[in-house]
């Protein structure tokens, strides 16, 4: 059920967001999201919109079960880059990166029941960006 929900949401998100550039987009084409903090994403944004949950699922097992810390698809690194410049959050309003897109696509992300939705302090975060140390 949940997998089907995620897939449907991913398709909806892909359809709605395709064509929108990275950065705030205040049009019918998609939600107006905070711009990312810096640099390109670890994958092509179109691929990320469709598959980020798959990437996260595979890399989380490497981290939790095997202790591999610098994984490419790390949720903490997502948050570091996509957190709002003012409050350091990815949740809170329709402009916040994760909440904005998820509510636009009508899917509830499970991650933040347990995971911090706040960016790490700059020193750890820069280490995180360099090697996605997570």
């Amino acid at each position: 059920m949940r997998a089907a929900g995620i897939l449907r949401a991913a398709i909806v998100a892909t359809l709605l967001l395709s064509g929108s550039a990275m950065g705030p987009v205040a049009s019918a084409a998609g939600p107006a999201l905070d711009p990312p903090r810096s640099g390109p994403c670890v994958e092509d944004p179109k691929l990320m919109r469709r598959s980020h949950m798959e990437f996260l699922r595979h890399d989380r097992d490497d981290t939790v079960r095997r202790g591999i810390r610098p994984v490419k698809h790390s949720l903490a690194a997502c948050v570091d880059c996509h957190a709002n410049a003012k409050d350091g959050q990815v949740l809170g309003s329709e402009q916040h990166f994760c909440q904005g897109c998820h509510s636009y696509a009508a899917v509830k992300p499970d991650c933040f029941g347990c995971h911090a939705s706040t960016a790490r302090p700059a020193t750890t975060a820069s280490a995180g960006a360099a090697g996605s140390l997570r």
Partner: protein
Amino acid sequence: MNPVSKRRREFLGTAATIAGAMIAPGVFLYDYAHGKAPGEAASGKVRWGMLIDTTKCASGCRDCVDACNQENGLPGTTRPTDSQWIRKVDLKDLKTGKAISAPVMCQHCADPPCVDVCPTGASFKRADGIVLVDRHTCIGCRYCMMACPYKARSFVHEPTTGQKPDVPRGKGCVESCTLCVHKVDRGGTPSCVEACAAAGHHAIVFGDLNDPQSEISKRVRAVATTQLRADLRTDNGVRYQGI
């Protein structure tokens, strides 16, 4: 063992030693004391452990407990349902009057009963001996809490806020001391050990029990140490001195 297979074993042993020396003649590719580089998977060559010297642990001192709460984003409150990953336990021998105080946390058993009873595989032991809960798989049944002889595990009853980015934790999952795995994986030391040293007590030594050169191995060789409830034969990674 017949003589041929004995000779063969001896030969294989020698060959392995020589190969090892040729690969790394006195040079280690990374900090051997910490067992692995961050990008490498945890390996069975390492067995992480702690030695707690109760003769150095001060009664009333809670520095290790506070450091653990701080590091792992635990509220640090002690209502009946609050999580505790480490607690100070005071014991007194009524006959002699000898009193000791020592921290008790997950003992990182080599044969962990919590893992045996977990129906989903969420409780697991990493290759390097650290026992963890995979919260992605935990269904909150709490069998592990019943099975653990050390009362080491807590259940999260309420929605959580203010989690540390490195230590996710949430309602409906069991949790316990992780040996600060997020720090150890990056070459660090558990926070309780650091706090104890910073306070000048140096009552906890952390290290690789499999490495004969590590401080913990040297100490375990030199002094009498005990595993709590050794009769249960869970082969704890945490050892105590002076009890």
